[in-house]
């Protein structure tokens, strides 16, 4: 990898171009010996042919490379994960049940967070209707657009500020799966 980086992209292209046909040839020979050819190699061949003989811009998980760990797991981390006493290891959840109000999975004796989010939003709307929550209205919300542009010309927003404004850094709870009794460890009747 470092070699190809140092020598530039052209080296990589030539290396790949040289490598792919040989590989397919070799695999074609091995197909007769009973081992199925990896279908991703065919995809790569198609992409190269469609791209005038050039390799695709990205060779990613879709074609040939799969997810790989970023770093080697250290000796200590590895041993801790495998051989520590059971109370330090991660345990599977055995108390998963079906939420009767939405049919998703939930932990028994705990509130279903999917329903809780729905009910809380609904109750907040109800409180707002009854006047318990008062939204503060911006006093300049009905400004003339021309006036607004003169009064507040706007400032240049940096890239990092724009990313922060998207609020993607706030963790969001993912939607739970639908409950299926065949997928739980202990089948409850």
């Amino acid at each position: 990898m470092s070699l190809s980086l140092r020598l530039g992209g052209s080296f990589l292209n030539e290396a790949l171009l040289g490598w792919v046909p040989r590989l397919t040839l070799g695999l074609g020979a091995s197909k007769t010996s009973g081992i199925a050819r990896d279908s991703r190699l065919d995809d790569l061949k198609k992409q190269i042919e469609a791209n005038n003989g050039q390799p695709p811009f990205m060779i990613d998980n879709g074609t040939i490379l799969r997810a790989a760990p970023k770093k080697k797991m250290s000796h200590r981390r590895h041993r801790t994960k495998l051989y520590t006493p059971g109370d330090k290891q991660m345990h599977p959840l055995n108390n998963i049940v079906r939420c009767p109000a939405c049919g998703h999975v939930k932990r028994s004796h705990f509130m279903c967070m999917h329903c809780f989010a729905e009910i809380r939003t609904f109750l907040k709307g109800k409180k707002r209707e009854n006047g318990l929550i008062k939204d503060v209205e911006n006093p300049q919300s009905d400004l003339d657009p021309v006036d607004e542009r003169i009064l507040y010309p706007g400032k240049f927003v940096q890239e990092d500020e724009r990313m922060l404004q998207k609020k993607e850094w706030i963790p969001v709870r993912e939607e739970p799966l639908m409950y299926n009794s065949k997928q739980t460890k202990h089948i409850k009747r």
Partner: protein
Amino acid sequence: MPSLQKFHANVARHVKSMDKNLTANLIRHEYIVTTRTKAKRVQAKAETFLADALHRNDKIAQDQPINSKIVANRALNFLQPPDKFEVGSKIIQELAPRYQQRRSGFTRIIKLEPRLGEDKAPMSVIELVDSEYEIKFWYTAKIVARLELQGLKVDDITQLNVQKLTKFRPEGEKEFAAAVETCKVEFFKYDPETQQVTDPEALKNLENLPVNLEYYGGDLSGSLVASKRFKTQPRPEKEQAEIPVSPFVAK
């Protein structure tokens, strides 16, 4: 407001102040979402405070203005002075009629999943029972609404929960029936005019049925509430015994 470095959970002064603030906010907002430790700690304080305040309110003469009632109620001195009038007037005007039949058990804790933050703290809701914004009330209403839309009968545990929720609530059963209709429209996109669920997502959600349908109006209904460990039978009704009138009692 003290800064975070000056406000500790193991300083008695700060803990007391937290208890007072959480109690006031619980009464103000009907339910609050906090960490489990705080919820459990404030539950004891809030229960004692509410029981005391409502008990003293019963003893006070009712025909005086609200301000003098608040001043006369010594239990309200537990609150922080700025909260005393606002929260005290809510206790006297709203909570006293609501909790006429209760002497304890004004609050409920519901366990939630851990917080999605750095600390993964276990969270919970602490709420006032019999309020309009009671989370368990609406959750149970949602369960009943879903079962009705699926055409199933209500199972034992839900029936028990409904009975508990509506027992001391003023016009409880009527309110619960209205809440079920609201839940159908709100959460399952039910159209009350055509009496149909049209939203494809809601329809797909309604296809997920309980595992054993026998509990829902089938052969097994009534078996979940009965004790599995002890074979108990319902106690027979007492017969009315006729005591003969003593000849020594003057007529």
